[in-house]
């Protein structure tokens, strides 16, 4: 095989190089300059993002266990782009521990992204699991990295304990699957599934539960609010999006790709989980006083909506899940970055810190409003299309009840989103001076606004891209079979 830029593993190799470089700088320069490390990481991510555009579709490596299909390439773009935004947003972090240990922070972050990239291409159970862990373990570390001294380690430890439990469930499930199929190849799953072996179903169900933890679906969602509340906000902005996307990619690979009509077995389970997740997420968001906890629960509800699209188990449904992920990326990251800006100025992450923001910083308030409206699914911002599309996909499968439930709870979601808007626009400010927004944070917020409004006004290219990405899942039985 000759070397070329479109080969699989090229972005992964680049990230690995970046990771080593950051580690070395951290070892040589003590303490490493956070600005240097941060910019280096950002440029590295940006470069990797560029590399993903050269990736050739359909290329495989290692006897087909590592494949770059359109879904893999699409999700790699998503992972790297969101990580780049997060790094850009965190460049202005001032916390002491972050300043002192910037190299470690970024090293661990890159490792996690690397795990995601491998995961996106993995066509083999062991590789899938290992890359999943490569993604997850750094998340535990990063959660406890900065911020309030007692809360962060506590949240990190909790996250780690439950995360490990879920990983155990995954491994347990995988052991059944390998036991039945006698192979670690994902391509062996469809045939085994069709045979209706109960052990196979048990394995797959356990695996689904484990993955449900990663995407924070009910009842595996409980880690999310605690973790979000304690960890540093730019990291949470990314944590709330990228690992969930990775979870979805894994689910798509395991349960949909190449399975054919047999995949419909999963429809009732996924629909039930989707419905429960939407209900709990939205209802539990209502009594929250902390904006990050509110966004955590609302994020859980969004996962529920994505599961609605997934429950359709159709090409269109998968595409719309991907579309939803992108819309959620911009809307949710944007909201978290505004939270970061306000929290930094007010020293508070309570929703009350937003009081009278419209009078103090009208543009920042407007940005937050746009993000909230997008999350709430108001036309014509990105979130509206996202919700509409997953609903349409579900209706194609006749799941009217689920769509109705989802639509009703959208109203509940609007209620708590608009509670924040009300604080910003109607209630009087406690203080009057402007909220200082660091330039880089402003840039990131602006990018997210562009994304939200752009997708809302002109969803076409995104729909095309996601449909293209989803198409590979339903292409003729995967080429990776040896």
């Amino acid at each position, binding site marked *: 095989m000759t070397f070329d830029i479109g080969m699989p593993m090229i972005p992964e190799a680049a990230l690995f190089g970046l990771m080593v470089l950051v580690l070395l700088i951290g070892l040589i320069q003590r303490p490493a300059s956070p600005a240097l490390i941060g910019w280096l990481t950002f440029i590295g991510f940006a470069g990797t993002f560029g590399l993903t555009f050269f990736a050739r579709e359909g290329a495989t490596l290692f006897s087909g266990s590592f494949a770059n299909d359109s879904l893999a390439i699409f999700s790699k773009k998503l992972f790297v782009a969101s990580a780049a935004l997060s790094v850009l947003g965190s460049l202005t972090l001032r916390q002491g521990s972050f300043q002192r240990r910037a190299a470690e922070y970024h090293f661990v972050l890159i490792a996690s992204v690397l795990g995601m990239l491998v995961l996106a291409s993995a066509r083999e159970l062991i590789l899938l699991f290992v890359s999943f862990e490569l993604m997850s373990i750094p998340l535990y570390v990063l959660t406890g990295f900065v911020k309030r001294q007692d809360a962060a380690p506590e949240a990190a*430890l*909790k996250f780690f*304990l*439950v995360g490990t*439990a*879920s990983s155990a*469930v995954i491994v347990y499930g995988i052991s059944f699957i390998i036991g039945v199929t006698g192979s670690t190849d994902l391509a062996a799953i469809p045939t085994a599934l069709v045979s*209706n072996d109960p052990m196979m*179903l*048990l394995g797959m*169900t*356990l695996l*689904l*539960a484990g993955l*449900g*933890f990663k995407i924070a679906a*009910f*009842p*595996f969602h*409980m*880690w999310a*609010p*605690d973790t979000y509340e304690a960890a540093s906000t730019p990291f949470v902005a990314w944590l709330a999006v990228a690992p969930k996307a990775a979870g979805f990619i894994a689910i798509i690979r395991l349960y949909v790709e190449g399975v054919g009509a047999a995949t419909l*077995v999963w429809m*009732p*389970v996924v629909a*039930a*989980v989707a419905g429960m997740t939407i209900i*709990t997420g939205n*209802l*539990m*968001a*209502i*009594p929250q006083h902390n904006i990050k906890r509110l966004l955590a629960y609302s994020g859980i509800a969004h996962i529920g909506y994505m599961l609605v699209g997934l429950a359709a188990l159709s090409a*269109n449904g998968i*595409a719309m899940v991907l579309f939803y992920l992108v819309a959620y990326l911009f809307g949710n990251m944007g909201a978290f970055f505004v939270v970061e800006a306000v929290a930094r100025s007010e020293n508070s992450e309570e929703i009350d810190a937003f009081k009278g923001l419209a009078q103090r910083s009208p543009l920042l308030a407007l940005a937050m409003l746009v993000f909230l409206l997008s999350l709430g699914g108001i036309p014509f911002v990105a979130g509206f299309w996202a919700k509409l*599309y997953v609903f*349409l*996909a579900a209706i*194609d499968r006749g799941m009217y009840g689920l769509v109705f439930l989802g639509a009703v709870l959208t109203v*509940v979601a609007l*209620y708590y989103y608009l509670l924040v808007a009300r604080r910003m626009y109607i209630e009087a400010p406690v203080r009057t001076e402007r909220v200082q927004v660091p330039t880089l944070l402003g840039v990131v917020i602006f990018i997210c606004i562009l994304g939200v409004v752009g997708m809302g006004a*002109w*969803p*076409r290219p995104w*729909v*095309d891209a996601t*449909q293209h990405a989803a198409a590979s899942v339903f292409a003729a039985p995967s080429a990776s079979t040896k």
Partner: protein
Amino acid sequence: MMANSGALALIAWLLPIFSFLVLAIVFPFRRLGRPAAWFSTLCAAGAFASAVLAWRIQSVAAHPVHLVWPWLPTAGKTIADVGVLVDAQSTIMLCLVSLVAFLVQFYSVGYLHDEPAPALGRYYAYQSLFAFSMMGLALAPNLLQLFMCWELVGLCSYLLIGFWYQRPSAARAAVKAFWITKAGDVGMLVGIVMLYRLAGTFDITELHSMAASNALPLAGLSIITFCLYLGAMGKSAQFPFHVWLPDAMEGPTPVSALIHAATMVTAGVYLLVRTDWLFALTPNVLLIVAWIGAFTALLAAVLACVQDDIKRVLAYSTVSQLGYMMTAIGAGVASAGFLHLLTHGLFKALLFLGAGAVIHAVGSNDLPNMGGLARRMPQTALVFIIGTLSLAGIPIFGGYVSKEEILGAVWGAHLTGPFLLLMLVAGLTAFYMFRVVFLAFFGTPARVAAVAHAGAGHTTPPRVAHAALHNEAVVEGAHVNETPHAHEPPATMLLPLWVLAVGTMVVGVMSTFHLGGFAAAEAAGETAPGWLTPTAVGVALAGIALAWATYQMRAVNPESLANAFGPIRSAALRKFWIDDIFEGIYSFVLLGFSRIVGWIDRYLVDGVLNLLSDWTVQAGDELRGIQTGKPQDYVYGIGAGVLVLILLMRLVF
């Protein structure tokens, strides 16, 4: 060549939105006022230039240019596009819109020169948004884009009527205009959606070819076209939805010229012209259109005769002329209605801007406060008379041919009733317009006007008393002349007047003598019998003569003339109680209904909803209980979840 006209139309369309975005986003620039005004005017001029070029190309092109981008995707197909449909019809409409928009913006620089800078910038932002929306409406390739632009022009109309929002009457008029047109719009939206259900497309070209090939099912089509017509009724002020238009005169006069005379109010007519092949399939609806149009024309003409406010005369005259256009469409000759739309756009803008010049000079809207202005402002008087003669339908003036064509079309369609109504309206139109001319420009200067001039304040006591008496608009705050004598307006205002006057004359002369493109248009409408032209002109001249005798020579005492029509006059002064009926409907039926609904809402709906929302909030609180913060509980959660999932899978099998 073809692509060129598409691109040109696109440029014409997008220049105003560029101007709007600049003014809206770069607010320090907007707050400068004058530079913002000139910037917006420049964009409008550019739009006009490219509109003319597009029209030049498209008027000889064989095929329309359909330049669209897919929008609103769903799985596998596109519900609607955005873009432009460039054909002869839409480009000439584009020319009219951009020309009047440009002239009005130019004129407003002079007219609103006392306005504070931020308000001026806001005014021009609205103007730009309006120009964009109206052009988008004209160029719309599908009904969805047309509807969106339709709503946008409604929004701009609302914003501009209420431009002086500190004034309660302006704010009220803005709301009234918005709600009444909105009532029609609801019908229109229903019609569009039903049409989509029927035909599976919003695209005008596709619908047209379906209609041409009889692919459209006729069942239920009447309801659809009637719903579309409802929208047109609201926008084009057809009875009984005409009540908002006279009140809309609360906006600045240039706004009235642009939106409430030349462009937006003709959108309803344009919609019907654009879809005349659809209406042709439903002759029963066309009959309704014709009768309501003719009735509206008459009603508004009668109302115009008793108004003392110069702008209200023009407003009712606009309603009346819109009725004319609608009648032509109802007669099945949309081209005649469209031609009248174009000529009317020119001369009515001219009349409004002329009236603006008068108001600017006198500081009052009321005819009794004017008089003898021809000596002080001869140029304004001249162009105003040109406009008046056009409106009266006198040969070689702009409105002559289009009016004749409408009359010929209505006669040719054997609509004798509407035809007689329109004939009567022709006489009335000449009468009330020359009443304005004689009262404002000839005769003796009014004493009250002198008082108005002497006072340096913006409103003078007689005006206020008068306004209070008639429950009408207080003097426009634009400009009250402090010199003792009225004088010609500044060049920024005179120039647009002359451009429009010359344009009206050129169109009039060319059409009267069948020159240029009018020969072809004429050939199409050549159904009129020979006696029609002399009769129509004769009726108009009779109307002029009566006005002359009454208001100039005082040979006929206006009082005795009024008494001769006693009951009609007093009824007309009360606007035939139509506004009162609306008021009554509003305050008794609607408010009464609202009270009932309000009670139900407060005690029943709110009760249930409060209960539901309480439950929801409570459920949220209860659910919080599962979030104990203890990791062992979380792991229990995972375990329980696994079990439930396994059970679920068992249930499935």
